[in-house]
């Protein structure tokens, strides 16, 4: 068995970790995930942290299961708590939190 010295980033298996933290906003999440499809590259990952929603968030996630790498659904204390969980689970070199009710990301600037 051989082990070579590596850098921190060599253990980051993904390029960008996109993060959605959500709670009871299934309609917004659905729109945001549709938008996300446009710029998500194969070397990126998508993390959805849900605060144990009571609406149909789970169904929306199921529908988009092909692009979601990590889905956590459990009660949390706040949006910041959910984001921190995602930071700990992220495996990307870069981390980009995405608000589920904004539509400001355009594929071209992200790729640059």
């Amino acid at each position, binding site marked *: 068995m051989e082990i070579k010295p590596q850098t*921190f980033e060599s253990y980051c298996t993904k390029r960008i970790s996109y993060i959605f933290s959500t709670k009871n906003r299934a309609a917004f999440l659905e729109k945001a995930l549709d938008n996300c499809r446009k710029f998500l590259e194969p070397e990126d990952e998508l993390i959805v942290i849900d605060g144990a929603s009571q609406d149909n968030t789970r169904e929306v996630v199921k529908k988009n299961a092909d692009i979601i790498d990590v889905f956590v659904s459990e009660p949390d204390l706040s949006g910041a708590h959910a984001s921190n*969980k995602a930071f*700990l689970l992220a495996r990307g070199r870069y981390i980009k939190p995405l608000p589920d009710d904004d539509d400001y990301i355009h594929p071209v600037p992200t790729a640059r």
Partner: protein
Amino acid sequence: MTTFEFYSPKRVSFIVTTKNSASELDKCLAVCRRLKGFEDELLVIDGASGDKTTEVVEKYADIVDVFVSEKDFSNTHASNKGMLLAKGRYLKSIAPDDTYYPKAMEQAIAMFDRHPEIDILLCGGTKEKNGKIGYVFIPSGSHYGNKPEDVFLYPRCGVGHIYRRKSLARMGILNLRSLNTDSEFLVHAIYSGAIVRFCRVNLFHHPFSHYDQEFYTDKFWLSVAKRYCSRRFYFKYLLFIKSRHSKIIQVFCYLLKLVRRKIKSSAIKKFLGKKVLPEIVWDGGLS
């Protein structure tokens, strides 16, 4: 429901931070071999050492899962990298000069598994200074962890800390600017509402080194007390610190102690006799 811990494929992540101390690392990894179970992982975070660190790690390649070697700012910076790369449910830092007891480690992890509400589990052990042994022990019924002041009132040693990785989302990671990272992190965690408990197991033996001495900076601890503790406690602590340097305050404190003792010595106390020091029993319970 998919929880955070579903994405933690390992049980314990042992984190070893090192820089230019290959011989100590060799001993440390030998200890890790005894501690590490088949569900655990071992991360070695090196600060781009110029000595034989890489050769030592290669010798233990069968137990090392992650080996990072690049420049870092401090030991705390390296620990934070380890925490971010870890995949275990629990995080345990391993210091090269300390001795750990595998059976106690298993007891502590079993206790952690039984109590999913606990964020930080503190374990007991022994500290050695100039040949004298001191115990890091908190007696049963102390209700440790209810207030940040507890960290000041009871014996403390970062060697016995075990963190639940999930709880870092609530407590944050280590403060790079802190002089005593572990203890300040503990005070901050209790202040932020984390559940901290002491497990009565003899996990470690920590020989006192000169490196430890820089941690005991009065100014630093006063600033921690001011930030996180009650105003009443802060002034008491300030008086305690000042009394170390001022003869007048020492005399004043002694007189105050005498007066308080006089008031408190009731008939019941007289009946009970001398105050008995708590007996050190490593029974594996929570304090």
